């Protein structure tokens, strides 16, 4: 009798755990699909200051990112605050960010007839998830450290973000997150999704209602994430791309061979937009 009890309870516990686990996965997948297929309502008045967060990577990714920002003629009077996230030790990306801000964005200003403000920018350094030659034993810890740092950046609490406090933005959260593929981007986009999940849970259970009066109806329309697959990727997605396929709100590809890929059937497809680099 005793053994029958223990076997049966073990069976039920296992069944329960499986059902609970599976339904959590299904709910998550459904929520991701729903979020990815949702469109941002037109709620923002045209002259609202915008906070753009750009995640930079190593050499090639960074060069491509600034090439895209140059080609789209990023307007510093519209995107009033720019945050550039670089990995620790990546001086090249930090230098390129300063160069872009001081030459490209101010040049644009001087050619305009009516001078407008170029706003402000900050360059934020986050620790690497895994350094080259770092042991795989310590890698999980450094990944958590890197992830925590990304959360701080999104909440405007990172020590490198002093200039954010003096900007006219009402919220510390970036309005839009743009990236093209380094490992740090996975951390930043995952952190943004978790913050959004947290906000939507808060609004469901009406905790902290009124804490973000400037926020639109749904927290899902903050911290929108755009991933651009590298121009160097013609036929296969990069590892970051594969990881971010279900997570990014928009997934842009620059070659026709990558059009229409999706993480699972109900998800949003990748969009082919042609070369975005100049």
């Amino acid at each position: 009798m005793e053994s029958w009890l223990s076997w049966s309870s073990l069976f039920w516990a296992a069944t329960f755990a499986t059902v609970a686990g599976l339904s959590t996965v299904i709910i998550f997948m459904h929520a991701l699909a729903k979020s990815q297929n949702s469109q941002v309502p037109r709620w923002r008045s045209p002259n609202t200051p915008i906070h753009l967060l750009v995640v930079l990577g190593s050499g090639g990714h960074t060069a491509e990112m600034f090439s895209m920002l140059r080609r789209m003629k990023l307007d510093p009077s519209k995107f009033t605050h720019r945050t550039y996230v670089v990995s620790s030790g990546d001086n090249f990306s930090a230098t390129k960010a300063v160069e872009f801000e001081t030459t490209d964005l101010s040049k644009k200003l001087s050619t305009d007839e009516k001078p407008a403000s170029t706003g402000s920018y900050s360059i934020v350094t986050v620790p690497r998830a895994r350094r080259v030659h770092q042991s795989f034993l310590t890698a999980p810890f450094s990944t958590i450290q890197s992830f925590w740092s990304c959360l701080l950046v999104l909440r405007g609490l990172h020590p490198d973000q002093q200039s954010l406090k003096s900007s006219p933005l009402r919220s510390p959260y970036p309005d839009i997150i743009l990236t093209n593929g380094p490992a740090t981007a996975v951390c930043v986009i995952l952190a943004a999704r978790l913050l959004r999940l947290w906000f939507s849970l808060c609004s469901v259970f009406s905790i902290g209602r009124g804490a973000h009066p400037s926020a639109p109806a749904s927290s899902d329309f903050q911290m929108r994430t755009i991933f651009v697959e590298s121009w160097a990727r013609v036929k296969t997605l990069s590892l970051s791309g594969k990881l971010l396929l279900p997570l990014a709100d928009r997934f842009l590809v620059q070659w026709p061979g990558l059009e229409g890929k999706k993480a699972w059937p109900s998800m949003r497809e990748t969009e082919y937009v042609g070369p975005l680099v100049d």
Partner: protein
Amino acid sequence: MPSPPPPGAAVKVCFITVGATASFHLLLQSVLEDEFLLALERLDFTHLLVQYGKDGQSLWEAFQSRCPPGSAGRHGLEIDGFDFNQAGLDAEMRLTRASPSEGQTGGLIISHAGSGSILGALRLGVPLVVVPNPTLKDNHQEELAQELQTQGYVVASDYRGIASALDRAEALRTQMLTWPPVRGVSQRRQRTLGDVMSDELGFLD
């Protein structure tokens, strides 16, 4: 840096970059071989500038001692090299552009298949030979080089066929497409990065 040209003679520069991050000894060896230097001489090149990378130093020095400046092994070419340039390679790439005021006739660029170097050369409108590095593990460079060749922007070449790629690059010079591509009528519906960002910000019309 190539020295100022003697009056009346046009400078024609071939610039080679092997990249800064990964070493590419196979390309470096190929371009320092006699066959390649002969091909350059036949196509009226006057200067060869090589960015040989951090660990290309020993190969470069071996060439210097094998063919010291002024020796017949150089085939009359002015050959220069440097390891890499922290500030980027734009200045070196511009040396290959046709510029009658500076006595430069249009040269060409031979590059590893890194996207930064490819884009730099495409922007200049100088014929470009792209050589994918076969020693890199995840070799999506080959796909990029082939696709760009199919579309008529570059010449893709194996590091062994680099001398014959020079002729194909000379042929490309007369029919090069401009970069960035002009958006045709069929691409008008494609959204630009600015459009996508506006979508996601949800601006009121």
